[in-house]
């Protein structure tokens, strides 16, 4: 492919690509910074947590969320790239949902944020479809054998989010309090929500 033998670091390669495009005037001013800001600040699992909390306290919203996740998330201002078709998956006491993208690493950026490294790892992608109970166990979530597990493979344009079961002992909590319990892990289904 080239006369060079030593592979440049990813950092040097990234700088090279940026410089080569910039030198040709192809990168509009502020475009990269804008993307990075959106990715770092706007796309946030706290958004998904707020969606979940709202669904827990507002039965009408929950119904709308299950019927049209995209529109319900947009009500709270969460929409856009990789959020064009959001489907919310409601956990039940007897059925647990977990999300993966085995072929790349798709996820619902506006509500879940950019995915964590574990989600993008070959280990998770390879294993969770074949042995979800074992994978969840290794990640700290023990599910009894009689709880069914549905693994959702993000192979097309649907972007999933999990609505975990509301933990006991949270009756009367505010929406904000509830949202603070919902972790990014719970939104993908590798953890439950607890009030402890």
């Amino acid at each position, binding site marked *: *492919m*080239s006369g*060079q033998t030593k*592979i*440049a*670091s*990813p*950092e*040097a*390669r*990234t*700088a*090279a*690509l*940026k410089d*080569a*495009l910039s030198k*040709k005037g*192809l*990168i*509009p001013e502020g*475009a*990269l910074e804008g*993307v*990075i800001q959106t*990715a*770092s600040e706007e796309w946030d699992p706290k958004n998904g947590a707020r969606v979940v909390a709202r669904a827990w306290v507002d039965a009408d919203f929950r119904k709308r969320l299950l019927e049209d996740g995209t529109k319900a998330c947009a009500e709270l201002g969460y929409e856009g790239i990789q959020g064009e*078709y959001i*489907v919310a998956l409601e956990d039940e006491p007897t059925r647990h949902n977990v999300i993966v993208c*085995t*072929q*790349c690493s798709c996820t619902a950026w506006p509500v879940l*944020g950019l995915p*964590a*490294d*574990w989600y*993008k*790892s070959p*280990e*998770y*992608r*390879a*294993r969770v*479809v*074949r*042995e*979800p109970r074992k994978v969840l166990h*290794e*990640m700290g979530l023990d599910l009894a*054998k009689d*709880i*069914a*597990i*549905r*693994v*959702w*493979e*993000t192979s*097309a*344009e649907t972007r999933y989010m999990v609505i975990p079961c509301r933990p006991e002992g949270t009756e009367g909590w505010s929406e904000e309090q509830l949202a603070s319990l919902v972790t990014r892990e719970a939104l993908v289904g590798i953890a439950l929500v607890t009030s402890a």
Partner: protein
Amino acid sequence: MDGIHDLGGMAGFGTIAYEEDEPVFHEPWQATAFALNIVGIGVLRNHNADEYRHSIERMLPVHYLQACYYERVLTGAATLFVEKGLVDLDDLEARAGGSFPLAAPNADDPMVDLTPQPVARFKVGDRVGVKDIHPKGHTRVPRFCRGKTGTVLHVAPAFSFPDAAAHGGAFRKEHTYHVEFASTDLWSDAGSENESVVVDLWDSYLEAAAS
């Protein structure tokens, strides 16, 4: 393509490394690589999301497994910027001060013949079979469910068909279906009871199955 990216169900991988309170980006170059690709898609219209996914799939398998996610993003995006002529590999390598491994070229004849299905053929509850196709180019039907039978849980809107979009094929939209497969159907008697996988599949990947 039946490539290394199609990892679902592959055995031999170890423990999943989990980092508490992981940052969005671990290093600034990762953020830049991510943004370069997004700008390449959304602003420069250099490539679309399907071409982008496939550019990563075309990485040599050992490079794919060695690279972190953002190195994969970088490699795929750079490959497409080079292939479309926006930048030159020699120039990139001179700037980087070392070699800049790209993904391998697209296959000749990347698409298989699948009849377009503009109207949803299936409904919730239908039993559907996944065609056992092996396109040399991009496809979004994981190998682990090919030839298997599942049940439609949900009918999603019509979306651009990726096998065509990744290779300059005629634009078409088809509904996708959330199809549930029992673990024991996917992995035979090495599967597990009470576990299933739901795969989101375009209409033309499917055929009607006996219920």
